[in-house]
């Protein structure tokens, strides 16, 4: 039992494998594969894409090492009234709002300003529900798959399928009544938009802290001193959540500046699914979505020219590297697969994929990048995604999953 526990928390391998620990085989293999993919990106002659690939790698390391999960953070508040994870997300979005909106106002980048309508309400609700069943959100699914969790691979495949199905229906959903895109930084001017958003996020943070204090008598802190030196923690993981916030905000800003658009994830899944169908002979141009100019263009192009895909490849390898540095590669697969949790992975993945297309993004594209660039649809996503998560949390025990 102690060996298993040590394998899960990763402490023994870290001590056993050298000065900094980690799993040399995983680290070496990932660095080699990363160099090959990096060379392929570099060969396209676009330093911008190469930098985005590296930024994606940094995001993967930060997500894994800080264990920055949106799904568990929401569930911890819903079930246990512990707000640490949710507060970290609100802080991240608040910092990102202050950083991103001026860049967009200066014309240096575009925001993820998407239309607001019933499709965002339904899509985010389905996504929120799906992420509790699937066991991870857009970023969470990607970094846990990368860290070797086989159940999350099932979630990812269903996620990809669901997002392609979403593209078949999205034109119909968009043909209905909607408010169109609402940019809060234009509605209130950039400074007003930032102040409004930061005030709302701070008020929410205050409320959830009050709820936590009411239940537990204390509030868990975002910055807990690591149990080892800071540089060792930086490399081998178990980051304080606040480090994750700072890293994700900084890398999010770099993404915005280099890509000219904020960080997104799920469009890559959609594209990979469509490319897979096209590769087996399906004529994607029979579907309206894939006749629109940008989807049609990237479907024809190399996947290495599409920003979210290149960043996702970097993220996968970054998270894999981090898992190797922590000596925990594949640790998530120690949990047994059963009919219940596999069914939940499939249903959750399908709902997240479909929901992300309808809602113009996932927890990253809509919740993080949407709100941080002043899009009202991000706020709508937050409200209905959270409601969906409450339902999802209630459904988890039916699939044999603990809360």
């Amino acid at each position: 039992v102690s060996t298993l526990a040590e394998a899960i928390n990763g402490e023994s391998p870290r001590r056993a494998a050298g000065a900094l620990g980690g799993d040399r085989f995983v680290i070496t293999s990932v660095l080699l594969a990363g160099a090959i993919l990096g060379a392929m990106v570099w060969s396209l002659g676009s330093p911008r894409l190469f930098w985005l690939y590296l930024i994606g790698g940094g995001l993967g390391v930060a997500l894994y090492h800080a264990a920055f999960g949106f799904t568990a953070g929401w569930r911890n508040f819903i079930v246990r009234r512990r707000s640490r994870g949710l507060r970290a997300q609100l802080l991240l979005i608040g910092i990102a709002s202050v950083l991103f909106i001026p860049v967009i106002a200066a014309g240096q980048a575009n925001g993820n300003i998407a239309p607001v309508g019933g499709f965002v309400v339904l899509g985010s609700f389905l996504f929120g529900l799906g992420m509790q069943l699937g066991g991870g959100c857009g970023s969470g699914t990607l970094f846990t798959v990368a860290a070797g969790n086989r159940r999350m691979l099932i979630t990812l495949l269903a996620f990809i399928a669901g997002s392609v199905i979403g593209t078949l229906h999205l034109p119909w959903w968009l043909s209905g009544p909607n408010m169109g895109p609402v940019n809060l930084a234009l509605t209130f001017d950039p400074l007003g938009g930032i102040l409004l958003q930061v005030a709302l996020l701070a008020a929410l943070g205050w409320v959830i802290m009050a709820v936590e204090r009411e239940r537990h008598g204390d509030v868990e802190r975002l910055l807990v001193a690591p149990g080892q030196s800071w540089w060792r923690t930086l490399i081998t993981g178990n980051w304080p959540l606040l480090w994750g916030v700072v890293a994700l905000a900084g890398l999010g800003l770099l993404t915005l500046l280099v890509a000219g658009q904020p960080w997104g994830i799920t469009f890559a899944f959609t594209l990979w699914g469509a490319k897979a169908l096209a590769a087996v002979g399906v004529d994607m141009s029979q579907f309206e979505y894939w006749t629109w100019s940008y989807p049609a263009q990237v479907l024809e192009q190399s996947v290495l020219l599409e920003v979210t895909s290149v960043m996702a490849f970097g993220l996968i390898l970054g998270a894999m590297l981090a898992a190797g540095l922590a000596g925990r590669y594949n640790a998530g697969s120690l949990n047994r697969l059963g009919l219940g949790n596999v069914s939940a992975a499939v249903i959750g993945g399908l709902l997240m994929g479909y929901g992300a297309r309808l809602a113009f993004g996932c927890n990253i594209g809509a919740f993080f990048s949407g709100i941080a660039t002043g899009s009202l649809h991000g706020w709508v996503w937050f409200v209905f995604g959270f409601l969906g998560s409450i339902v999802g949390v209630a459904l988890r025990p039916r699939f044999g999953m603990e809360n």
Partner: protein
Amino acid sequence: VSDRRPPYSRTALLVTLAIIIALVAFDHLASAA
């Protein structure tokens, strides 16, 4: 030392990485053609 690591197959890890690279390369070459 190695038996105290999380169990995984080194072959499976290498195959996974090779599949990722092969799929990307295949798509890249097919798109360029």
